[in-house]
């Protein structure tokens, strides 16, 4: 009899306890450290911004945020790891155009951009088309004229199918010239190739060429945004020079779909708070990264826009 009563009690208590604990854990999210997956190598531009973010974001959330680099496969390994993790809000993805849009369009990676919920965009990087400072090309027009006169003579360096590569392809198509792609293994090798005279031009993220443009070794001919970059006010946009070509790689936070709504709200609020904090902004500015914070809904629209833009170029 005693046993039966105990069993009955247990049946009654367990569901209550379960509900209680689920409710409690949702309320008290986060109650353990959060892992922030970076899909590129330590030391890259995404990694630096993620590591800068980790500390203030952890303070805003009340739990430490630890960066975990999971590079490889064009960023697909880390992205997949973020999808494989339990959907409890403790694994966040520092996502970029590369791993989020370009790699899944080009390769069979088993995920799509909308397998994720946006948390917010942090950076929309500027792409600069740079040449060596002793190059005869002073403007975008000079370059285009030369390239049109000698199709296939000039070369450019870029990571294969990265945003700078695709942006230059877009420009070549729009302006009707042809240049030869010498694929590079990263931003820094691209700068080496340009400085060493092994390629004639380099479309690159602003951060990779900033030091050499400011140091007078490279010249920026155009940026591919709708307005000039405040960090490089002397470099005109491609649009000003008559070529409406745009390209802007993003970095932001995302999380696998299926995470409870309160968790999403918490993360979005925390990111907004950090992104609007002047101390964090000043720190990011020092890394030559201008923050372009966008809230979740707008970030989601960027995903969709880029996905549709680049699908025709990359899908086979």
């Amino acid at each position, binding site marked *: 009899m005693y046993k039966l009563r105990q069993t009955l009690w247990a049946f009654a208590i367990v569901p209550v306890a379960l509900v209680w604990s689920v409710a409690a854990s949702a309320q008290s999210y986060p109650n353990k450290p959060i892992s922030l*997956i970076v899909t590129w*190598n*330590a*030391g*890259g531009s995404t*990694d*630096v911004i993620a*590591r*800068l973010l*980790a*500390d203030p974001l952890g303070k805003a959330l009340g739990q430490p945020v630890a960066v*975990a*680099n*999971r*590079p*490889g*496969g*064009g960023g*697909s*390994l880390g992205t*997949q*790891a973020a999808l494989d993790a339990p959907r409890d809000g403790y694994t966040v993805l520092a996502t970029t155009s590369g791993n989020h849009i370009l*790699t899944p369009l*080009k*390769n*069979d*990676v*088993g995920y799509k951009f909308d397998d994720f919920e946006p948390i917010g965009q942090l950076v929309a990087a500027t792409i600069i088309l740079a040449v060596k400072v002793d190059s005869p090309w002073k403007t975008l027009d000079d370059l285009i004229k030369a390239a049109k006169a000698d199709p296939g003579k000039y*070369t450019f360096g870029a*990571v*294969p*199918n990265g945003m700078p590569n695709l942006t230059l392809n877009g420009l070549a198509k729009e302006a009707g010239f042809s240049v*030869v*792609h*010498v*694929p590079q*293994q990263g931003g*820094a*090798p691209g*700068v*080496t*190739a340009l*400085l*060493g*005279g*092994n390629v004639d031009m380099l479309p690159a993220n602003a951060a990779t060429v*900033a*030091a*050499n443009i*400011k*140091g*007078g*070794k490279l010249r920026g001919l155009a940026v591919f945004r709708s307005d000039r970059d405040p960090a490089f006010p002397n470099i005109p946009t491609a649009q000003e020079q008559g070529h409406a070509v745009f390209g802007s790689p993003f970095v932001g936070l995302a999380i696998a779909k299926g995470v409870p709504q309160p968790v999403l709200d918490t993360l979005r609020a925390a990111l907004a708070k950090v992104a609007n904090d002047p101390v964090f902004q000043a*720190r990011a500015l*020092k*890394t*030559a990264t201008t923050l372009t914070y966008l809230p979740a809904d707008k970030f989601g629209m960027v995903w969709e826009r880029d996905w549709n833009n680049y699908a025709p170029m990359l899908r086979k």
Partner: protein
Amino acid sequence: MDVLLAGFDQVANVTALAMIVVGLTIGIVIGAIPGLNVPLAVAIALPITFNLNPIAGLGMLVGIYKGGTYGGSLSAILINVPGTPAAAATALDGAELTRQGKSGKALKMSLYASIIGEFISDLALIAFAIPMALFALRIGPPEIFSLGIFALTLVGVLSQGNMIKGLIAGAMGLFLSTFGVDPLTGDFRLTFGVRKMAGGWAFIALVIGVFAVAEVLSVLERRLGQRPLAGTVRLSDPDHSLTRNDWRRCLPVIARSSLIGVFIGAVPGLGAAVSAYLNYGITRNLSREPERFGKGALEGVAAAESGNNAVTGATFVPLLTLGIPGDVITAIMLGAFIVHGLIPGPVLFEQQGDFIAAFFIMMVLATFLHLVIARAGMAAFIQTTRVPNSVLFPIVITLSVTGVFVSTNSFFDIYVMLGFGVLGYLMKKFGFPVAPLLIGFILGPLVEVGLRQSMIMSRGGLDIFVTRPISAVFLFLAVATIAVVAWREFRSKKTGP
């Protein structure tokens, strides 16, 4: 001179000195532990430096870098498990010296060769940064390809007496390096539809597998036991001391290897492991008694260690003068510069003279402190030769598994490591040398990318490799190496058994 004095001010304070010492200590220990690697330690330490003054923060990272590059040799010599890929060349002769009861000799030579290499590298950085950077820029894809081919011929040097198996191992390494993402098109290749294969074989899993796990398996087969020596090991015993004769043999080797290491370090994209193997191979090839190598030749240790540590100063040449990080570690350090608003490159180098001077002084100071700390720690490290294998190797396995996981955040790579462990064990058992496999794996991407980029640049013409003078020199060296090796093989067949 004023600039140097101003720079000295930034370095000569307690925080900066303490951070260099902390960095060196962490670096040496991390380097010595198989699985934990230097880039990882630098990445973890990076956020700490955000809150220090730039020189103190960079001092810690430089300490980890220098200490870690050297630390790998400790485990390579003492337990035949290289703590870092760059130390794998050190193990070839270092571990053999330990087996002969001369571990102290190997440890001392490894340290002194490392320090001399570092010092020469620091001086080269300070005195010739700009000309070195200009030279490094002349190393384009054709030069990288030809250098890679020259380095590959050294597989032949390493395989003398065991040529077929050595070449098979080297080819295996080249083949393994082709898995993952095609470096020029971004397509996935050789993944067999397995998405986890998209990253190729993780380098760290391969290194730890074929060296650490394989060594554990071989020791298991020999039934543990055997090793522990009685009594404390004293570094002052004659067997553990360097003689005048040792120095006479090794000093020229150290000088040459340091200079080559400085060159390798200044060129972006090569790195310490390439330098270690290149120098080991060159030294063996130039030696009058190449047959002593692999059987406990102290010059082998000296070449590998001065070669890999001579990279550590020169890698800052492209970073400081051009803003280009030449390897993973300097890439992470770039982060430490920029959070302080210091963007390395021409502007920083030409306009912030006192900061650059402080950085140079810090580098030299770190080299000196490295000598002191490592020499003091040696007496402790050498005692691992007294730890019974039954205690030591379970620890090695645990550290290997944790190390691979911490580095890659991936369970898949732990299985990869175990798989390579079995491969490495079988290779040892059937007499295949493991080093060529690693060399092939490291050089594969350099050669592939160099070749394909060159072919695009020349629109398909092979002449680009001989019309560019530096490339032609490397190809000539490659041909010469092959000729020497072939001649030696031929002669030993004739006079041999």
